[in-house]
């Protein structure tokens, strides 16, 4: 067989099921590729090869003994270093938690384990998941596999880079303001930020409980939906988890390759904010992606929208007070152990008054009601860019904690953070490369719990476009 790391997750599962591939062989191929690529990208902070080899041997033995295997039997994955596994170090990308060993396992890891996935290691991330670029003073910057001078996006930087580079078949990330969608877009992979409460956050490092979501990155829409179908659904361990049962995500894509598969779907293009001040080249790629959807039968309509620029700013009045409340003891006792940028962003939380925090939290209800009434009454989903400009270089965004930091970072998260505030699901799907050779992505935004529709439309796009599922030349 040719290099099995080039397979999609679903192809690898099929070959494994048919007996043409085994877990140990697939794992060794991935570990070999990690050894070659890691020095270039710095996407792993820690490998767990022996635990992975033991799990792979167990998986192959189970098959030989005729025991049932799970839907991810023998599939190598790796995860952002903020998902707790009992007895194993979890740094959260920080110096402060360099030796932190949790005594519980995150629900999402337990679900992937139960499905038969092989966990091969922990991936680089922004310190405490605070940073949209991929910079990390403690572990070094995670580099973009398309061009190492450019940012990987963050905060799930290693997740985006490792999946794009073919080191693993999928990776967990978290998304509080764009941290799944930004690295997915910058690295050319698919990433889902679910509805708030759709995927358990139990055992995931918290940043802002009102805005935190756990998502997943994969090489294409189908792989992403397969992983999501294992992760989504109620969890009694997570008070924020919603009781609503999970939908059939893979089944929603059954007709993706058929002509007219999107007939009846109305895709809205918002009149404000998301397309303002957009780069011409990025706008052209987005227009081309809309034409693909239109050819599949989707109706593209302009839709009115509120001031999501202001919502983007207002979300800081929720995010940072919640974050600083978690970090207050360390900020008092170990301030020198934070990177300058992390510390500067946390300090914003000390400046937000309690009334402003509560008002911003209460206003989510009114602003979501308005959004549903004024925008989603006219369409089934929104089509917007993840990034308004081509993926920047690391040097352009290496602002540390300087006075220009807030403005620079705000521009990067402008199109992602409002959707965390509104609690809505969003799928980032690659739509091609800019002239600089870096990926761009469309962001499909749905009503609450409309992840299945997002996967359906994303898969239809991929099936009829040569610009999805990109693979970098590394």
């Amino acid at each position, binding site marked *: 067989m040719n290099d099995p790391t080039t397979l999609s997750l679903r192809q690898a599962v099929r070959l494994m099921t048919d007996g043409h591939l085994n877990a140990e062989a697939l794992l060794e191929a991935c570990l070999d590729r990690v050894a070659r690529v890691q020095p270039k990208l710095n996407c792993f902070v820690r490998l767990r090869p022996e635990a992975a080899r033991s799990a792979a041997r167990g998986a192959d033995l189970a098959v030989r003994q005729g025991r049932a295997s799970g839907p991810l039997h023998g599939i190598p994955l790796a995860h952002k270093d903020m998902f707790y596994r009992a007895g194993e170090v979890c740094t959260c990308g920080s110096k402060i938690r360099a030796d932190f060993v949790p005594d519980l396992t995150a629900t999402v890891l337990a679900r992937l384990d139960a499905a038969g996935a092989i966990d091969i290691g922990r991936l680089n991330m922004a310190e405490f998941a605070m940073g949209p670029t991929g910079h990390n003073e403690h572990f070094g910057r995670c580099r973009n596999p398309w061009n190492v001078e450019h940012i990987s996006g963050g905060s799930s930087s290693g997740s985006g880079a490792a999946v794009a580079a073919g080191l693993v078949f999928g990776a967990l990330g978290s998304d509080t303001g764009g941290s799944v969608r930004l690295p997915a877009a910058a690295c050319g992979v698919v990433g889902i930020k679910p*509805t*708030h*409460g759709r995927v358990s956050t139990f055992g995931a490092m918290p940043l802002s409980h009102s805005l935190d979501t756990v998502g997943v990155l994969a090489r294409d829409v189908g792989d992403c939906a397969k992983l999501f179908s294992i992760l989504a659904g109620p969890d009694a361990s997570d008070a924020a988890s*919603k*009781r*609503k049962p999970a*939908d*059939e995500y893979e089944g*929603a894509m059954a007709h993706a390759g058929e002509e007219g598969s999107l007939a009846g*779907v109305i895709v809205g293009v918002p009149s404000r904010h998301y397309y303002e001040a957009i780069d011409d080249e990025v706008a052209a790629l987005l227009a081309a992606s809309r034409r693909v959807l239109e050819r599949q039968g989707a109706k593209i309509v302009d839709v009115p929208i509120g*001031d999501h620029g*202001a*919502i983007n*700013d*207002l979300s*800081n*009045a929720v995010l940072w007070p919640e974050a600083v409340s978690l970090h*207050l003891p360390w*900020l*008092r006792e170990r*301030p020198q152990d934070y990177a300058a940028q992390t510390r*500067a962003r946390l*300090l*914003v939380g*000390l*400046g*937000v008054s309690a009334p*402003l925090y*509560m*008002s*911003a*939290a*209460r*206003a*989510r*209800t*009114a*602003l*979501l*009601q308005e959004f*549903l009434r004024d925008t*989603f009454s006219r369409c*089934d989903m929104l089509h917007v860019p993840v990034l308004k400009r081509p993926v920047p270089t690391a040097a352009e965004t290496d602002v540390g*904690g300087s*006075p220009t*930091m*807030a403005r620079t970072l*705000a521009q990067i998260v402008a199109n992602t953070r409002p959707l965390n505030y509104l*609690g809505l699901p969003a799928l980032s799907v690659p739509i091609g490369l800019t002239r600089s050779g870096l990926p761009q992505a469309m962001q499909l935004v*749905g*009503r*609450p*719990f*409309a*992840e*299945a*529709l997002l996967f*359906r439309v994303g898969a239809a796009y991929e099936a009829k476009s040569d610009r999805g599922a990109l693979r970098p030349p590394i």
Partner: protein
Amino acid sequence: MDSRVLLQVMTASGVKVTADEAEVVARSLAPIEHAESELLSSLSLDISVAQFVGLLESDTAAGRNT
């Protein structure tokens, strides 16, 4: 908010904060305060934080989901 007042507010938390850091925070707060004036001025007394969770799961929010 004036950065000198902000410095006093922030240091009251027990965190050591420099005047320069307070200045950076003051700049970060400006757009938040602008958003507050734009979005929160007509916020109803009868809206609670808990209603957001209910709204996400409500039939009102649901539409075509597959």
